[in-house]
């Protein structure tokens, strides 16, 4: 199927990309006849590049992410997260181009939700990252913030928060609430789109269990959950957390009354 690109834009893109990566223009043009041309950046292996070309595409992709972020920052002279959309756009610009690893970030905000500092707390492999709540707590206290935004990417493209995603969000909410620091949202970036827990009403409530242990974020778990057999050991989850979860109705309704955790 031939795509309807504006010729001028497509031609500019192909020439520039060819010059930067060494992939021939004819190969890119041929690819564009049957495919979405921009897949070359988002899914570079589809064009079968050599190792050097692949490396260049990754770097270019990362540059474009930073470029978008800077444009956003230059456009809004004062970085203020007034809505989930602003936060989603911000972190999509920052994390959307990263396809080869999970990256966990936090933005620390003042009373007016203006940005104080943005930090990366973990960079893992393609499907997982380790997050240390203690490190986030330390950074939050250091900058005397009043609110926090959490964000990480799912290189696999899954938009659904995994059990671990919900877990770390709840743990951090439980840690920060007594300190009067609000965790406003947890943004999950998947390519050019994002999932906001706040928008979807899935931001967990605070729990009495405060735990500072490292948490492994696992993108694959989200994918598995989206498939069929969803099983999880709930013995480690608190009552308040489980009360916010939706469980499938049991065939035997009388069992419901017997739930004791």
């Amino acid at each position, binding site marked *: 199927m031939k795509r309807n690109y504006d010729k*001028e*834009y*497509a*031609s*500019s*893109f*192909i*020439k*520039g*990309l060819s*010059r*930067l990566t060494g992939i021939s223009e004819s190969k890119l043009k041929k690819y564009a006849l049957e495919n979405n041309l*921009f897949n070359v950046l988002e899914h570079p292996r589809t064009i079968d590049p050599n190792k050097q070309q692949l490396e*260049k595409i990754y*770097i*270019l992709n*990362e*540059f*474009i992410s*930073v*470029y*978008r*972020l*800077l*444009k956003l*920052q*230059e456009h809004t002279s*004062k*970085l203020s997260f007034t809505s989930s959309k602003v936060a989603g756009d911000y972190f999509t610009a920052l994390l959307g181009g990263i396809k080869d690893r999970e990256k966990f970030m936090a933005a620390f905000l003042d009373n007016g939700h203006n*940005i*104080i*500092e*943005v930090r990366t707390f973990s960079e893992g492999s393609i499907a997982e990252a380790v997050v240390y709540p203690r490190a986030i707590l330390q950074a939050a206290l250091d900058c005397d913030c009043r609110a926090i935004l959490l964000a990480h990417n799912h290189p696999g493209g899954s938009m659904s928060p995994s059990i671990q995603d919900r877990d770390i969000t709840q743990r951090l909410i439980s840690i920060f609430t007594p300190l009067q620091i609000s965790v406003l949202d947890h943004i999950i970036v998947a390519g050019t789109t994002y999932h906001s827990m706040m928008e979807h009403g899935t931001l967990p409530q605070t729990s009495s269990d405060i735990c500072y242990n490292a948490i492994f974020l696992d993108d694959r778990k989200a994918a598995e959950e989206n498939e069929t057999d969803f099983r999880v050991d709930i013995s480690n989850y608190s009552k308040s957390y489980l009360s916010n979860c939706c469980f499938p109705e049991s065939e035997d309704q009388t069992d419901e009354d017997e739930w004791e955790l």
Partner: protein
Amino acid sequence: MEQINIIMQKDYERATLLLGDLFEIDSDIIEQINCCIQNYGIGSFFKNLKTFDFPADVAEKLNAVGMVLYGMSEESLPVAQIFKEPKGGAIYEKKL
């Protein structure tokens, strides 16, 4: 505001380092690019490539990045056309 500037400065440096990796160029050129980007802003930098005095191969690669950005509708000006300007006419004479 000062903290915002520090954040942006870090991002400018990151952008420049990525360009350095992409182009495989010397650190002094990277520093020069960083300086120009910080002075102009990232958007204006690519719109004003012709005003900078970069070596020809670096200018060509920066132009190529601009072409990719334009192709992705990230840049409003067709950067490629900047380098297609005829070398003549009032504007060219004025520059000389």
